[in-house]
């Protein structure tokens, strides 16, 4: 069930004023409490953990920079999934597209020496985008051709892409006898660090550009309108004269490209080369971020900052306490589950007041549309 998009800050403020934020806050508090109980049962001090978590994400400019830097590739992943979803395509392949972008940027960065930064950076980005975008388009074409859900296609393709990347690195681009990595990319292809050692690089500006790009596409272009229509109701869009195949194809080209950029930004900004395990798990976080963000680019950005903050905070907690990082993963899972569950708090609230919850009378349809193409 999709509704029209929010019309900007005014509506948001109004919603907050009406107490909508309280539900989120209550849900967040619930997840904090449940995670704290689990920590207590295991013999750890949750206050100590949460304190370290907060300091680690917002307690200093360095730490905040780490949180933002961690959020950057996650934001790209979230934006990628979000535009796919907009067009009705659930892009689980984001994990593979991220990886492909990371390697492509590493190769373009290392094997085109002598270019000035003004050419080299766009070259790396462009190459990464094209590779990721093509994988995205391939997923769509396969779906159109085979008439099956994209879930199976993207899951399979993830493995294929991962093994291909592993193969390419092992056979052609290996730079070390010990670590699985490619050669250093040229200095001109590096993204400058904004705060040293913090993972925050100029890549964050490109993430912001990505957010702006998606906002512009959704709000201001006909293409955005078309893919929204396709996502809402494929048949209706088709009868309305929209070229569905082309729309979804282009949306997935952008989707794959954005994911690949996320990988490229990690290569060019944080590491300076491709190394095994560098973007592990970012894709699945991207799926979560896109859904939590409600399909809205700003929402994606905020959700990715939350995830980045949790990761940075968890890192600090690891460093300053004896609490294992798994508890923050549990907290993260509970946050994902509770905060995005619309009726959770309302349900308890209604139970307390002893009246039935005022739920809309819509049946529980699957909320991730992915009609056969």
């Amino acid at each position, binding site marked *: 069930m999709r509704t029209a998009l929010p019309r900007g800050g005014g509506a948001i403020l109004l919603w907050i004023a009406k107490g909508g934020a309280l539900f*989120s806050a209550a849900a967040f508090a619930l997840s904090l409490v449940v995670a704290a109980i689990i920590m207590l049962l295991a013999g750890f001090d949750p206050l100590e953990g949460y304190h370290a978590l907060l300091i680690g994400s917002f307690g200093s400019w360095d730490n905040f920079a*780490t949180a933002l830097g961690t959020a950057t590739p996650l934001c790209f992943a979230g934006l990628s999934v979000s535009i796919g979803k907009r067009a009705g395509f659930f892009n689980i392949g984001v994990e593979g597209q991220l990886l492909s972008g990371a390697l492509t940027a590493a190769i373009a960065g290392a094997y085109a020496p002598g270019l000035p930064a003004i050419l080299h950076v766009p070259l790396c980005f462009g190459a990464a985008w094209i590779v990721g975008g093509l994988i995205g388009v391939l997923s769509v074409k396969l779906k159109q051709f085979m008439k099956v859900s994209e879930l199976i296609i993207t899951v399979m393709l993830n493995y294929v892409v991962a093994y291909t990347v592993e193969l390419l690195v092992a056979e052609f681009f290996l730079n070390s006898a010990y670590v699985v990595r490619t050669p250093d990319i040229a200095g001109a292809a590096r993204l400058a660090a904004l705060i040293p050692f913090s993972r925050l690089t100029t890549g964050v500006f490109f993430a912001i550009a990505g957010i702006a790009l998606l906002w512009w596409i959704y709000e201001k272009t006909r293409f955005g309108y078309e893919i929204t229509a396709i996502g809402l109701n494929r048949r209706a869009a088709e009868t309305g004269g929209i070229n569905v195949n082309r729309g979804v194809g282009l949306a997935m080209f952008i989707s794959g490209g954005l994911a690949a950029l996320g990988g490229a930004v990690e290569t060019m900004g944080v590491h300076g080369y491709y190394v095994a395990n560098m973007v592990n798990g970012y894709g699945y976080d991207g799926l979560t971020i896109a859904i939590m963000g409600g399909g809205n680019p700003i929402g994606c950005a905020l959700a990715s900052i*939350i995830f980045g903050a949790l990761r940075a905070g968890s890192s600090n907690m690891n460093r300053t306490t004896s609490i294992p990082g798994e508890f923050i993963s549990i907290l993260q899972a509970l946050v994902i589950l509770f905060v995005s569950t619309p009726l959770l708090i309302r349900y308890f609230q209604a139970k307390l007041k002893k009246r039935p919850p005022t739920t809309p009378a819509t049946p529980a349809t699957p909320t991730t549309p992915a009609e056969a193409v």
Partner: protein
Amino acid sequence: MKKSGMKKTIALFMVLLVLMSVLGACGSSAGAPNSTGQSSAGQTGGPAAGGSEDPFKVAIVLALGGLGDGSYNDSVYEGFVRAENELGIPVQVVEPSEVAEMQGHFVELARSGEYGLIFGVGYECEEYVVAAAEQFPDQKFVIMDSTVSDHDNITSVQISGPQMCFLCGAIAGMYSKNNMAGIVMGIASPSMTNRGIVPYTAGARLINPDIEIRVKYSGSWSDSSAGKEIALALNQEGCDVIMSYAGGSGLGAFPAALEKGFYVIGTGGNQNSFAPDLTIASGLFFYGNLAYICIQEAMAGTLQSGLKDAGLAEGGVGYTTDGSNVPMDPANAERLERITQQIIDGSVIVPESESDLDAAIANNANA
């Protein structure tokens, strides 16, 4: 639905900001440990600089995979537990969840100035330790399994996994009647080939020049069922001794052995009890001991920078037959002792790259 999803995220974000101030105030008055986010006022890293009243503390940044890897991390961790118990030294254990985190860990730990010694595990962390070491020259670092030798504040302990694999290969050579021995591996990498397969092959060929080595990859470090399939496949091809060198995946080799009756060699810890009648021995890392020695030396101020060997001679690696019911011929046991001595004195060469393999085999045949 979607729009309320985004709004919830906005609200969550704001709530986080508000909570920050609240919990921040609460937490610090509740006596939470120092945050390492801020640069410590006036203190640079280093044991002496920290003031003589401060207890000697160490920190370790483990390799990816964390505790429970049944390999380097667990082995090093034992040494730290010992240091905590016997020397009363507080230990801060850090388990990074991704590569990109590592740099931040080393820098922040060094910046805090609280730790007399900071450890890193694995060659993957070398460049991050070097970066932190250059930024904080008064902070001492130890890298387990590394070859960095040109920094005054870095000690590299050269762990010798290859020597352990060589011995395991020799054991395989002794017990294989089919002239074929195998290895169950996790994910392919040049390090796995050069420091695992190559020395294992050399060790096996030392005993049995005709032996053939087969290797298969389970594709993951944690998929025990895949490891079992690999072991069965290796056995089907003719391997009658199989080394398990794949962490969690390697666990699958033992039930496979129980099904088919082939021999197994464990690694990374005493795995002989997993299949006592079929596990000949387990290769061991004693990195904990070496870490312990480093800590002791650092406390006494005698820790040298540069390379520190940690092979058979220093008791860094070895093997054990404790818990195994597989009978070992005294002649074989004695041969293994002799080979150990020959490795230590250099007459037997343990190759660590594919290009050195043939030369080493030729050399060892005459040893």
